[in-house]
């Protein structure tokens, strides 16, 4: 199998996707409306990453041990527990649930 072709295509393609924005639009402040949109891209993407990391397996929507872990983590964060501690608490809940089921 020509795996190395796949590797090169993926590497070049991924770097292109990452760098088109910085190269074309880097260092310049866009107009105000666009600035507001760009400012909201991060919360949109982070929120989407949280959802995919918690509630999906491939193309399936699932509610499993990760959901319980995230809930515990979210409550901990809300109570101003340091992030690393909240992550560990979430992982413990998640792992316990997996061993229990």
């Amino acid at each position, binding site marked *: 199998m020509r795996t190395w072709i796949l590797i090169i295509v993926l590497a070049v393609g991924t770097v292109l996707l990452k760098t088109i924005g910085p*190269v074309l639009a880097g260092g310049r402040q866009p107009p105000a409306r666009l600035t507001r949109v760009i400012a909201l891209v991060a919360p*949109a993407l982070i929120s989407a990453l949280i959802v995919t990391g918690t509630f999906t397996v491939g193309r399936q929507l699932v509610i499993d041990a990760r959901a319980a872990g995230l809930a515990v983590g979210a409550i901990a964060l809300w109570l101003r527990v340091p*992030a690393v501690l909240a992550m560990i608490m979430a992982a413990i809940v998640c792992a316990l649930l997996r061993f229990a089921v």
Partner: protein
Amino acid sequence: MVVMRGTPRAWPEGLRASLPLALPIAAVGMSFGILAAPLLGAIMSILMSAVVWSGTAQFAALSILTSGGGLALAASAALLANTRFLPMGFAVAPSMTGGPLRRLLTGALIADASFVIGHRGGGRFDISALAWAAPVQYVAWVGGTVAGVAGARAIGDPSRWGLDVFFPVFYLSLLLPELFPEHAPRNRQPIIVAVLAATITLVLTPIAPPGVPVLVAAAAALVGLRAPRQSAGPANVGDEA
């Protein structure tokens, strides 16, 4: 906690902020190594992690190849899964300094975790924090793959340790301060956008190819085309306890 905004010591902060993710990233890299080695071979599996450095793309390609799909299909699925880097790059761009080459090299360091770590809210990014978050992720990813290839099968499926839930909780810890800022005028737009993006991702996941839901979710940011209604007024501030 990530509170040292724009201090001159931003680079160790990026390094430090990324440390808690070293273990979970290595665990995911290990899963990739375990799954990829029988199909691609040891060298190619490690090379792929070292050169592509993107779990989403690599797992997408692997699942296509495992189910008998061809190289072209595997490549397009993997790149589609990575299209979220396009809006990420444009979001980071205004915070960048230096010439095109410098911006190209820094842009190549964008990954999910470094993007989130460099994020300072209100569309601003600490580029050195982003850049310094990348090395830990890279070493953990490639190291994890090597461990997986080298027969970490004995340890068992790393997902059973619950490490995979590190990512959403970590991302949430860096999203919450932006949604509910303490010292900024209240602005509901980030909350609306986050909820909208989550909904789009949930709705599209079962019906769209991997990667597309997150890309489309980025479009939730278009809410910003309307000027935000500042529900300021000191009268309201005391309501939130």
